């Protein structure tokens, strides 16, 4: 591009002409193009609900990653005598409950459990990152932790802590499964749209047929297959757990819409005038794809991403309800809510076990939906420079 804009070399007699060119060049350099992203960001910032949602999601993700650092009770520690304890916020902070000190051992000769043993029971297996966070937390907060401000469950486990640990699983499930769907959908749709013709026709027909398959039932099949002991043993040998399979399966369902959307975009973009214009001034194919086509796809993809994550999280909750989702003792919000629904009896209303997980789920899905709507408006090219 730069070669074409340079003024031709002129003799000094035409200095007026030269000055005019130089002025034009200087002017052109001063004009700053507003990129699509900066423009979208400017518009998104004006949308207060979307910004609050974005902030909430960022804070939530940070807290979920840093959960072991927070002063929470061990999420798996069972204190049976406190089962179904109602939410209590006074005092706000309590000292961590130590089974060794509070309950006399059945066999007095038995050595008292070590801190490592208590942690292993209370937190489950941790990786090195979580272990170091836990160590940091002990150094900062000592033995103090939040009281059960969301109540306790059937086994006396602290619901507040379990909500945070559940957030990790729920968010991870939503994000990773959606990314799997994204990768499959974008490549499939882009290939179909780019190749066009008969290949496109066949590929999209396949998508049409798959659309009318009730996939929930296929998933129930697959996961019940995975539930049998033989397959579990086989999977353990290969080092795959049910969560990984879950990602793949869910991703394999949700890619259909993505493929359609991307294919439609690619087909319409291929014939757009700005692509032709870029080709005319000699831009390389690579430059056209990455500079002109992909950014236009990206906005659709991002919007779709934020709107698919809630669906995936709801789907995970649905599977948890059927006992086919996340495996205990891991927790997810769906599993927690299901535990709450299971203990509903006329005798006592353990409302907190339904309401708090439901609230956590609802707020996050809320935020994702609002952010998705806001992003769709912000990235809409028709709104540009408004």
């Amino acid at each position: 591009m730069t070669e074409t804009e340079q003024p031709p070399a002129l003799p000094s007699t035409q200095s007026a002409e030269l000055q005019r060119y130089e002025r034009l060049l200087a002017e052109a350099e001063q004009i700053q193009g507003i990129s699509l992203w900066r423009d979208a960001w400017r518009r998104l910032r004006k949308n207060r609900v979307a910004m609050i949602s974005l902030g909430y999601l960022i804070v939530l993700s940070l807290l979920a990653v840093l959960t072991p650092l927070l002063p929470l009770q061990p999420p798996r520690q069972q204190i049976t005598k406190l089962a179904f304890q109602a939410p209590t916020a006074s005092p706000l902070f309590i000292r961590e409950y130590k089974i060794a000190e509070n309950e006399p051992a059945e066999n007095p000769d038995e050595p008292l459990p070590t801190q490592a043993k208590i942690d292993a029971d209370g937190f489950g297996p941790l990786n090195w990152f979580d272990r170091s966070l836990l160590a940091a937390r002990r150094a900062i907060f000592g033995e103090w932790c939040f009281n059960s401000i969301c109540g306790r469950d059937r086994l006396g486990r602290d619901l507040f802590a379990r909500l945070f640990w559940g957030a990790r699983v729920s968010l991870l499930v939503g994000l990773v499964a959606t990314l799997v769907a994204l990768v499959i959908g974008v490549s499939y749709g882009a290939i179909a749209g780019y190749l066009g013709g008969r290949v496109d026709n066949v590929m999209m027909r396949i998508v049409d047929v798959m659309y009318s398959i009730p996939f929930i039932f296929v998933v129930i099949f697959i996961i019940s297959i995975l539930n049998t002991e033989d397959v579990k043993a086989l999977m353990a040998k290969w080092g795959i757990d049910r969560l990984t399979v879950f990602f793949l399966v869910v991703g394999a369902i949700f890619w259909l819409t993505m493929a359609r959307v991307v294919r439609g975009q690619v087909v319409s973009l291929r014939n757009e005038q700005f692509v032709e214009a870029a080709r005319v001034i000699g831009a390389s194919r690579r430059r056209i794809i990455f500079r002109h086509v992909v950014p236009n796809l990206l906005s659709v993809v991002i919007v779709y991403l934020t709107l698919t994550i809630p669906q995936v999280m709801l789907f995970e909750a649905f599977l948890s309800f059927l006992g086919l989702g996340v495996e205990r003792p891991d927790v997810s919000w769906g599993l927690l809510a299901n535990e709450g629904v299971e203990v509903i009896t006329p005798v006592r209303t353990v409302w907190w076990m339904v309401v708090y997980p439901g609230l956590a789920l609802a707020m996050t899905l809320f935020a994702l939906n609002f952010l998705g709507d806001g992003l769709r408006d912000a990235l809409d090219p028709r709104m540009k420079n408004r």
Partner: protein
Amino acid sequence: MGWFIIKRLGWMLLTLWVVYSVSFVLMRSVPGSPLSAERKVSPEIEQNLKRRYRLDQPLGVQYWDDLRRIVPHGDLGASLKIQDFSVNEIIAQGFPVSASLGILALAFALTLGLTAGIISAVRRGSLADFSMMTIATIGIALPNFVIAGIVIILFVFLWPLFPPGGWGRISNIILPAFCLGAPYAAYIARLTRTGMLDVLSQDYIRTAFAKGLSERTVILRHALRGALLPVVSFLGPAIAGVLTGSLVVEKIFGIPGLGVHFVNAALQLDYPLAMGLVLLYTTLLYVMNLLVDLSYAILDPRVKLH
């Protein structure tokens, strides 16, 4: 239009065949057999049982035999786990239950969603608009078993209006239908509101007002028809969602429909029952989507079926 329907039914057969094959492969790749979980029987008797249910044949033979039995007669075989029942009988018993629940849930979703959507679009920015849209957003973001849990705590235990479960009386169906329909009512409300707002700003609405029609006539006769289009196209996914949602709701409220059978059949490897239900659900879904497409063409004369 006739050609369109024939073509779509052809695609339906293809889809059913794909579903049949996929389900067959999936079911048979499960280790263990439906008979292995029973009490231990002597190998001879197990052999006899297998022969009776034709499980001793090679898989290819089973595949074709099943297909040849299902296609001309619609005979889905005998259940392997529920004694003395053929799959057709189980479906004949459970289907009316699930269908009435689903239809009531959809009717509920449509009436509530459309009313809320129209009111909040017409009274845009009012308190009613704000509160209804907030409730709708909550409805979308909650899984239906959480809604069911909250509703049970409120209206069965705290304020005993309804029985907790069971089937047969009108009071039995109201809560389940509400829980099943609530998320879709919320979606429909939002879609109607957006569609209405779009339509209300168009010229022909201004013309209708200008020629002196009452607000009621303009909204119900002129605007609603245009605003209905997105709602109608959402009905396809909504029907699919109601079908799957009934798995959850039937389990919570103890309703003797098909949903419970499906999960149990899949978990217990009851091949014929699971296959029958999958095929039934696929057919339902396909026919419903076809109806949705047809009604779309009736509502919007610009849409051409091909």
